[in-house]
């Protein structure tokens, strides 16, 4: 059964290489985009830390900024 699934009447090399290529591409794309996202979140956090108390409060009062701060504090490398 297992051998049959792997060899697929001699077509296994073509079928498996297609599937492996597809999912490796998915993994590669996911890692690239995730890395970009984390990098921007870290940049945002660094900039936020350098702000004075008044500016920090202004940032916290805005919905999108608040959202970014929330997801930035959750996701870690």
């Amino acid at each position, binding site marked *: 059964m297992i051998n049959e699934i792997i060899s697929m009447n001699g*077509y296994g090399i073509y079928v498996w290489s297609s599937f492996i290529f597809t999912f490796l591409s998915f993994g590669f*794309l996911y890692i690239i985009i995730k890395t970009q996202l984390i990098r921007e979140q870290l940049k*945002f956090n660094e*900039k*936020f830390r350098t702000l004075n108390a008044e500016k920090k409060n202004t940032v916290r009062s805005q919905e999108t900024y608040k959202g*970014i701060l929330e997801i930035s504090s959750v996701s870690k490398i």
Partner: protein
Amino acid sequence: MLKNFEPNKIFAITSKAPKYVLGLFFIIVSIGLIEALVLSPEDYIQSHSVRIMYVHVPSAWISLGIFSAIATLSFLILLFKNKSSILIAKSLAPSGLVFSIIALVTGSIWGKPTWGTWWAWDARITSMLILCLFYFVYIIAWRIYQDTEKVNKVTSFIALVGAVNLPIIKYSVDWWSTLHQPASVSVFEKTSIHHTMLIPLALMTAAFALFSLLIFLMKYNTELIKIKNKGLDRL
């Protein structure tokens, strides 16, 4: 209506959605893979090589769909200068590029046992390669130009020119004599694929669509945070 898609309004959704989309993707792709690699029957002519269809066809469909969406959004950008359309179009491109590469590579692998060659310069394959090149040029243009006004115009122009290629891809198998087989699945006509093959094809298409949604959401969030980072500098 476009105001409902303002980045600030939808960030609450786009920032939380990726984890749910990723979970759903894993569930559907697991079922799809079992169907595609184990349960679905082999073809009476192509034997097991037909299973390549389950990654090749959804990738081609999604890359075409994404470019159509980018072209439509680009038209709106030129017409209304809508900021959210710009952000959405830019965020769609990376997954579109990867799906077009997957369609080309898996098509080439499928070509070897079926046609006896890895590559042929026939209408469908060549027009698909042109689509992939348009994706490349579109993404590179975003990196080259710094001026916002200029980059919006250039990328929109690239997308609209590239959209001319979309009907060529779709009808190339009808207009010219090609190695590539005509469409087996149609929205308007009777589908010529047996349901035992149509189910895994539908599942894999759903899984791939979810993956492209996941990448889109992550890229969209990245671009939005980039904009907000610049906003912090101006505070």
